[in-house]
């Protein structure tokens, strides 16, 4: 952790410098465009100043995004509709519900696949195929169909999160539940353990490292799902709504700040799972 501080900082510094440079490069055409139309002459200095302070830049400068994030998180009351904290919370609730549902579904499917030969033989290719369907395309249909049967509110969004997050959990848990070696399974046989006993006492604990890795990927996927799910519900609130409203009005600064907050949210959620993982595995003596 500590040894990576300096390298991370270096890379970040490099990225920020690159970002500023890219902002000049990408925003310069517009600055020139406007200058020619108004007949101004741009010096290098005014050009750079202009590219870093445009209202709707092609690429906003880091400080513009930082200011926007600061204004929409710290300086706004968190119950305000203009507060990113409020929108992050809206997205977070759908993410968490979808994550719980997805994990549940994933684990159940994995148990089915591991314990039932019929499922083992037939389900997996379709689980993979399900992930090749563009979610953005069927999200509106899912929402409408669920609406038609009277389900609305948080749940439809959570279902889309679930759709994206169950996949890594199935894949990881099938691997994990199969990770006990033949000898460990034979041991259970010699003690004449029931299927339930071998599950709780052998397969499940053995799958823990795999479970946590899957949970991390699943959580990130779930967040993407929640954001996608916000669009076909009228994008009323949430980070997805901010992204959409931002692109609708060409508010690049708003897009970038919503993007970064979404990524930070994902990082935080994954980080929390990481902590739980470390504590659990430590207590299980597996780290």
């Amino acid at each position, binding site marked *: 952790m500590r*040894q*990576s501080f*300096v*390298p*991370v*900082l*270096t*890379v*970040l510094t490099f*990225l920020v410098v690159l970002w500023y440079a890219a902002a000049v490069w*990408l925003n310069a055409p517009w600055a020139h465009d406007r200058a020619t139309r108004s007949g101004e002459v741009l010096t290098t200095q005014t050009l750079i100043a202009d590219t870093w302070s445009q209202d709707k830049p*092609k*690429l906003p400068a880091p400080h513009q995004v930082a200011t926007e994030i600061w204004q929409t998180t710290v300086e706004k009351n968190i119950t305000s509709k203009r507060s990113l904290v409020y929108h992050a919370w809206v997205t977070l609730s759908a993410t968490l519900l979808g994550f719980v549902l997805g994990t549940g579904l994933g684990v159940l499917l994995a148990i089915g696949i591991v314990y039932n*030969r*019929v499922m*083992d*033989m*037939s*389900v*997996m*290719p*379709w689980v*993979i*195929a399900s*992930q*090749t*369907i*563009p*979610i*953005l*395309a*069927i999200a*509106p*249909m899912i929402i*409408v*169909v669920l609406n*038609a049967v009277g389900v609305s509110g948080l749940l439809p969004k959570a279902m889309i999160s679930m759709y994206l997050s169950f996949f890594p959990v199935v894949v990881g848990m099938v691997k994990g539940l199969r990770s006990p070696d033949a000898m460990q399974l034979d041991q259970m046989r010699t003690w004449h353990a029931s299927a339930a006993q071998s599950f709780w006492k052998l397969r499940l604990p053995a799958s823990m490292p795999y479970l946590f890795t899957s949970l991390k990927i699943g959580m*990130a996927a779930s*967040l*993407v799902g929640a*954001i*996608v799910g916000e*669009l076909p519900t009228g994008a009323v609130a949430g980070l*997805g709504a901010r*992204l959409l409203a931002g*692109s609708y009005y060409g508010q*690049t600064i708003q*897009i*970038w700040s*919503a*993007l*970064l907050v*979404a*990524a*930070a949210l*994902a*990082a935080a959620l*994954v980080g929390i799972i990481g902590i739980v993982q470390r504590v659990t595995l430590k207590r299980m003596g597996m780290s």
Partner: protein
Amino acid sequence: MAWLVFAVAAWIAGYSFNVWLSRRPPSRWASLAAPIVFGITLIAVWEGVVRGFEINQVLLPAPTVIAARFVTSTEILWVDFVQTVFKGALSGYIIGCGAAFLIAIAVDRFPFLQRGLLPVGNFVAALPVIGMAPILVMWFGFDWQSKAAVVVVMVFFPMLVNTVQGLQASDSMQRDLMRTYGAGYWRTLAKLRLPAAMPFIFNGLKIGTTLALIGAIVAEFFGSPVRGMGFRISTSIGQLALDLVWAEIVVAAIAGSAFYGLMAMVERTVTFWHPSQRK
């Protein structure tokens, strides 16, 4: 009612057939047939339920309707397929995976980068595509280049992380052996670490296949020429041509699964030596 009975009957028939299959000694044939039977069962149940409950075709068309549309629209589907898969997804996939591979080697060569780049990379990887897509469309224009860019962003990190992990997969004894031969960095890379990394690299490549397709389609929602699978899906929803939407989804699913299957096959020939590939 008859259709609902049909759905239930189809389910029972499919399930019992697979039970029968699973009781037989395992064979290549059975492992191929089981998922197919499962899929056919699903489709039959879908047909039965849609017709049985008389679900409006603008909400969920029946498989037969989709199939009929598929057959009459092959020309459109093909044009869209070329635009999205060949131009957008494939070029992005190749550029993204290729760049990730090269950077992985650089990251591996300089541990400083590894400690610095990977955490930042993980953060960047968490940026949702839905947000990236409009930006990239703005930067790279509305044609396939922006779709390829979205795909590059999507496949880059899974590939990078897997390759970096793979390059560390050779055990220390194998590396020590190379030292005793006085082999340098590049020789060790070529003769030991790359072959040992192959299972991981293919993991990244396989994950990338589905991501590439989804990325290319999703990006078309945010501006595109008047062809492409994402274009067709988004505009057809507006026109309530749900059968065409589903036909495109079927193409996407087939293409995605085939792409994945192809990678899995290449993997099997390249990493034939890996315990998971041996029988």
